[in-house]
């Protein structure tokens, strides 16, 4: 595997681990968040409903008590008693001693005349006739009446409660002005926190009590219109650029509607803080998982890379084995090569013996024959000598050396090992040597091993009847001036996906027991250590060219 493969492996491991680790975590987090929110909103709604109903009940109780008080007072005596302002004042003082609700009280007869009054507006109200007023007719028909808040001549918000009483055929009205502060206090207790609000509106959506944020008393509230609400409701609504909760409850008498406004963010501040904390914990958890996964995966893949490098480092041992394997192969070839000339030698020598046994040497017509045989024997012997000397030179050079070498000569000598093989397979070998090839300082035996491997591969690739072309030369490239040896074959070529792995250790295209895959990888290592390199150019159907090159200033790596 190369670096890119390890990178892909690392990414896959990270992705898989994160999926298995984070998806359940996120699932749990999201589920808890939404469950939490749902339960949370239910609680808010419940609390708001309870609050608005409690406040409404308090208000209704207040009004019922005031009405009860007035009814009791109205029936406490006859009209003639109640018309007595001194008596009325005493009763009023008694009422005030229990509660400061009432500002004033007055007695109005069935003609609408104000017949008695106790309060601070005696001069203004004493002689007023109410027979044309809406409230007079309302109370006369229903028996009780609570007005909306109004300013009147007093120029201050107030409202009245009026009740009727009757004795015989005489009916009178007891009317009281209520201190609206008390109502406002009751309503104000419905304000929650610093951003909560509570107010009363009438059927015309006019504020009956001042609002904290929605407007002044007797104005229209800056809120949705709840004046037609018929039952307690709690709703969420966006208003004044905020998400607000409105708890609304209508009153029976008076027909006002209590509105309590809450800002959930304030109410739920502790919950939000908890939620943010939970989110922070989850995000931190995610970051820890991600960081841990990346660090662990990186560590594992680095370990894999280290192991691979160590394995690659043991290529020296494999290189040695490869050399021995090559030697073994060569020995078999040499044995065959030697045996043939030896056979000839044996025959010729034998023939000579046969002839010598027959007649006198010099006078013999076979003398030339003898001479010819001897020369042939000598040639065969020389042939054997070349072979064995070559083998010895190769075997002697097992340790790396650093010598001036002629690549043409190295190639030529390498070909002698494989010429026979090529000949028997009908493979045409054509060689073009660059006569001006400069010498290079390198390890000849290692270069020869590489050439041997490459040419051997070419022989295997072309099969019987193929063609292999060899060429030496020099050129100037990005690495400066280099000398090269090129081995081209007209074999089937190497597919692109195989080509990119061709120099990987243990990669082989040969069948089992027909190749260890060590050759090209080690050849690559050898050439790199010699300061050069090996390249391959191949196309399916066109053949393959391997080029080994050495820079002229080649220096062996330690």
């Amino acid at each position, binding site marked *: 595997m190369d670096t890119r493969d390890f990178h892909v492996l690392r990414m896959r491991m990270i992705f898989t681990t994160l999926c298995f680790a984070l998806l359940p975590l996120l699932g749990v987090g999201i589920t808890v968040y939404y469950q939490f929110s749902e339960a949370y909103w239910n609680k808010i709604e419940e609390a708001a409903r309870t609050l608005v109903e409690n406040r409404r009940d308090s208000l209704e109780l207040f009004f019922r008590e005031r009405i009860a008080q007035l009814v009791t007072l109205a029936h406490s005596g006859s009209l003639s008693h109640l018309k007595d302002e001194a008596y009325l004042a005493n009763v009023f003082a008694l009422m005030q001693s229990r509660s400061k609700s009432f500002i004033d009280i007055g007695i109005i007869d069935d003609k609408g005349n104000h017949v008695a009054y106790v309060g601070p507006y005696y001069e203004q109200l004493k002689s007023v006739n109410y027979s044309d007023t809406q409230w007079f007719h309302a109370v006369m028909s229903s028996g009780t009446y609570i007005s909306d808040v109004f300013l009147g001549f007093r120029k201050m918000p107030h409202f009245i409660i009026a009740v009727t009483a009757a004795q015989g055929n005489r009916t009178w009205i007891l009317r009281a002005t209520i201190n609206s502060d008390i109502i406002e206090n009751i309503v104000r207790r419905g304000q929650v926190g610093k951003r909560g609000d509570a107010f009363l509106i009438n059927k015309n959506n006019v504020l009956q009590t001042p609002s904290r944020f929605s407007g002044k008393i007797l104005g229209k509230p800056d809120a949705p219109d709840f004046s037609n609400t018929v039952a307690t409701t709690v709703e969420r609504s966006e208003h004044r650029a905020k998400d607000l909760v409105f708890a609304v409850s209508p009153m029976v008498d008076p027909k006002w509607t209590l509105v309590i406004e809450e800002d959930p963010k304030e109410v739920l501040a502790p919950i939000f803080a908890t939620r943010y904390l939970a989110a922070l914990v989850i995000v931190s958890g995610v970051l820890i998982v991600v960081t841990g996964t990346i660090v662990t995966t990186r560590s594992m893949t680095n370990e894999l890379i280290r192991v691979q490098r160590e394995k690659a480092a043991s290529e020296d041992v494999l290189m040695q084995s490869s050399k021995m394997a090559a030697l073994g192969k060569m020995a078999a070839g040499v044995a065959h090569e030697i045996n043939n000339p030896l056979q000839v030698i044996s*025959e010729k020598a034998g023939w000579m013996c046969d002839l010598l046994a027959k007649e006198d040497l010099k006078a013999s017509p076979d003398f030339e024959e003898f001479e010819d045989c001897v020369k042939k024997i000598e040639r065969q012997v020389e042939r054997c000598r070349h072979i064995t000397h070559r083998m010895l030179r190769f075997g002697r050079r097992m340790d790396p050396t650093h010598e001036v070498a002629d690549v043409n000569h190295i190639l030529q000598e390498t070909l002698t090992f494989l010429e026979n093989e090529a000949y*028997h397979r009908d493979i045409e070998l054509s060689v073009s040597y660059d006569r001006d090839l400069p010498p290079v300082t390198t390890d000849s035996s290692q270069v020869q091993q590489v050439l041997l491997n490459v040419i051997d591969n070419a022989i295997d690739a072309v099969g019987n009847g193929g063609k292999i072309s060899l060429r030496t030369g020099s050129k100037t490239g990005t690495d400066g001036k280099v000398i090269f040896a090129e081995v081209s074959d007209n074999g089937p070529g190497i597919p692109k996906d195989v080509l990119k792995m061709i120099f990987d250790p243990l990669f082989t295209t040969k069948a089992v027991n027909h190749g260890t895959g060590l050759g090209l990888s080690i050849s690559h290592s050898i050439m790199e250590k010699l300061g050069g390199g090996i390249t391959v150019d191949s196309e399916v159907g066109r053949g393959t060219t391997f080029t080994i090159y050495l820079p002229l200033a080649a220096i062996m790596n330690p």
Partner: protein
Amino acid sequence: MEKIRVLIVDDEEEFVESAVKRLATRGLQAAGATSGMQALELSESQEFDVVILDVRMPHMDGIATLRELKKRHPLMEIIMLTGHGSVDSGIKGLQLGAYNYIMKPAKIDELIKQISLAFERKLIEQERIA
């Protein structure tokens, strides 16, 4: 002794040349061929009792030549001559009908002995068929 007709087939021309001469001086009627194709051509124009056949030859190797000779001349006895370190090729020849195999370098006496034995077998086989 009836002259045994022997064909020596080996791509080493010098060996063939010498072996033919030496066999001839020992009373055998010997001819030589330096390739499988030449051996087949000669076997069509002349009759041979025994063939000494080299295993490793270019173009048409010994095994291919053996197969073709046995197809054309089933009674012909063939002795494989192998110079390679491995005996696999010799054994393969035996499986294809060769009489025996000899490792190079083979002495002339060993060759003649194997030729004689092969010839005897050919005679026996000929009588059996007749």
